[in-house]
């Protein structure tokens, strides 16, 4: 089957098609034939999900054209990812793909904002930077410290509404955010209300745009790990793992078994924490603040485990390229098992209470999205699974030991707030199950790969042996150097597929880093999902989607 599929792609694209890695295909396209190629990929090859659109500025490399745009698509059935590459100059215009994939809109706006790539069907608005910003930050000739003040914040309401005089009209605009208790960070939503009912909604993002991608271009590979913590600050370990896995895959590096097992343990614990916060804040926003306090108390137990392992509670930075930062402290595994046991017990009570509560069901059986729409927007993770699509990277492409442990993928059927809640609360139980299984069979051995080019030598040796001293110095000075190449590596984050696209030119710093944040396409669909519902439903939807601004704006 796979061969037939590959033959079909080869016949169509000829020698422009290549298989870079298993599950990662590359096609080089040209500006004229791009639209046809993308149509072929969507309609004939079922690449239905747009993962990412990523620009690269080639000014520091001798390429004939300045910009490079990479489209990433996913075929859910065959689990294949394809990257379509296009090169273009500053004067050339890119065809829009919004008609094929609805979710492409924000990606294209970001492309204009960051690189100044213009489109055939007219200009785009800025997305992450403010409207008075001059220049395009991710171009190589843009100074990273070029800060520009914003004099007046943008008023999102339509022009006709602002000039209104006389008695108020039937519908009115209500601004929520960017600093609002509901947003759990800085998001801005503007809703048009008619009585209680939402007629329309507008979004503005970028209030937490911290320039992660530009910053990465000046940092060494290991130095980027602390920055990935602050992408999705609810589940920092999953980001660490995603980043390190991308670089290890780029280097074809096999990490020790113990490191794999530890990454699974911390990853799953982080996923639990993330879901706790999501469900807890959902309960709070629906008028049950005790739910939030309960979940935060449970979260505290896991945070203490993290603190015992690496000293940090939230920003963990617990992985290194090639393994983990340290081995488990003595007695940690036992303590973790105890915590898991107590969590399981208390979770049973809460799920009994919430899942069958008529009041809870009434309030959460709202704001549904169909599977077809979810795919068109580019949903992944719990929000996609709540619509009934069985796609979890841990099952489809089991990395580490995910094929050796027993767990199930919970699925919803309606894609509404209640299903998203159910999927998350069931995933917590499955994650705890994974943690117990891995800790029961924790493999012995080193926690980091024993390679002097990647991992630091033991500290006790550094002061005794000259060889080890030199290794230590070299690694600190020059860092890890992956070979020339590019990779799109994806792991299952708490909100969906967390992808890292990295281009390396064989130097100590990456040439280009792009994060594929799972929240980004999900939040884009928000106005469509909340249309026709009431304001309190909109609050519940926002927290059930678990939009994390740090990840959304990067």
């Amino acid at each position, binding site marked *: 089957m796979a061969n037939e599929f590959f033959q079909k792609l080869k016949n169509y694209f000829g020698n422009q098609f290549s298989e870079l890695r298993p599950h990662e295909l590359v096609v080089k396209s040209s500006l004229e034939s791009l639209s046809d190629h993308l149509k072929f990929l969507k309609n004939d090859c079922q690449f239905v999900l747009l993962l990412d659109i990523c620009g690269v500025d080639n000014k520091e490399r001798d390429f004939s054209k300045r910009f490079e745009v990479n489209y990433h698509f996913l075929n859910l059935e065959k689990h294949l990812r394809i990257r379509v590459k296009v090169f273009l100059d500053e004067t050339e215009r890119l065809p829009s793909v919004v008609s094929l994939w609805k979710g492409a809109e924000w990606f294209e706006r970001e492309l204009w904002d960051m690189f100044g790539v213009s489109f055939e069907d007219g200009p785009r608005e800025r997305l992450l930077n403010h409207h008075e910003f001059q220049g395009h930050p991710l171009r190589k000739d843009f100074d*990273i410290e070029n800060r520009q003040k914003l004099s007046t914040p943008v008023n999102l309401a339509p022009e006709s509404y602002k000039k209104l005089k006389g008695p108020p009209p039937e519908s009115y605009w209500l601004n929520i955010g960017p600093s609002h208790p509901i947003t759990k960070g800085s998001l801005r939503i503007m809703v048009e209300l008619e009585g209680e009912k939402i007629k329309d909604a507008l979004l503005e993002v970028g209030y937490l745009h*911290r320039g992660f991608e530009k910053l990465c271009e000046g940092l060494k590979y290991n130095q980027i790990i602390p920055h990935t913590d602050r992408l999705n600050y609810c589940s920092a370990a999953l980001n660490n793992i995603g980043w390190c896995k991308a670089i290890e895959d780029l280097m074809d590096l096999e990490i020790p078994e113990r490191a794999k097992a530890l990454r699974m343990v911390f990853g799953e614990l982080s996923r639990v924490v993330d879901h706790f916060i999501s469900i807890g804040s959902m309960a709070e926003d629906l008028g049950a603040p005790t739910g939030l306090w309960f979940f935060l108390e449970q979260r505290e137990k896991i945070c203490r485990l993290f603190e015992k392992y690496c000293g940090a509670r939230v920003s963990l930075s617990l992985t290194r390229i090639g393994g983990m930062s340290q081995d488990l402290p003595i007695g940690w595994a036992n303590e973790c098992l105890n915590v898991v046991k107590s969590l399981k017990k208390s979770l049973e009570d809460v799920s009994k209470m919430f899942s069958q509560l008529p009041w809870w069901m009434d309030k959460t059986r709202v704001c549904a999205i169909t599977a077809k729409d979810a795919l068109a927007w580019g949903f992944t993770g719990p929000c996609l699974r709540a619509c009934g699509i069985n796609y979890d990277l841990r099952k489809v492409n089991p990395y580490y030991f995910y094929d050796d442990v027993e767990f199930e993928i919970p699925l919803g059927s309606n894609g509404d707030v209640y299903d998203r809640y159910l999927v998350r609360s069931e995933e917590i139980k499955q994650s705890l199950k994974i943690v117990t299984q891995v800790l029961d069979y924790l493999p012995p051995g080193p926690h980091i790969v024993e390679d002097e080019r990647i991992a630091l030598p033991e500290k006790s040796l550094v002061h005794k042996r000259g060889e080890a001293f030199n290794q230590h110095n070299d690694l600190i000075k020059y860092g890890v150097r992956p070979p020339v190449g590019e990779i799109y590596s994806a792991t299952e984050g708490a909100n969906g597929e967390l992808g890292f696209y990295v281009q390396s030119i064989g130097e100590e710093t990456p040439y280009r880093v792009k994060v594929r944040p799972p929240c980004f396409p999900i939040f884009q669909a928000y106005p469509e999902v909340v249309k026709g519902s009431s304001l309190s439903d909109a609050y519940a939807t926002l927290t059930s989607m678990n939009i994390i601004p740090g990840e959304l704006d990067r």
Partner: protein
Amino acid sequence: MTGPQDFIQQEEDFLLEKLVMTTKASGLIDWLKRWGQSNSLWTLPFGSSCCALEFILLGASQKKLDDMGCDIVRHSPERSDLMIIAGTITEKQAPILKSVYDKMLSPKWVLAMGSCASSGGLYRTYSVVQGASREVPVDVYIPGCPPTSDAVIEGLKLIKERILKGAKKTPVIKKKPPLNL
């Protein structure tokens, strides 16, 4: 219930000292006013990122903010005395921070929680304001990324001390024009 009688009994030595130190009755009244302000701080969390989450956790599961007299968290600027800036302030967010600060009624105090709000932290980039003090006057800075709960409590104690002593506000740092070399 504690009436004024009990209060005077409890703080007798301290009050006596104050009475001796001040020559006018207005001095004592002024001190009483500051003492009252320092013990009933209503907080306004201006949360934007990771620190906001930690601030919620602090109140919800770790420490008793009631002991500090600032357990009342108000999300409306008109009703609060102390703004806690928790998280990164970007250039896009800065005018909003300023307008929220302007809406607060004086006397008002500001606490910068975490390294991002104090100095820009990890993010020395084109979009991040290098410290909230470039936009609003900050009274106390709490280091950490994110700060531990003990550090936040320590910061709150410090701000109470400042209010009690009637410390003056630090002025807003004007941004220097970039050097053209």
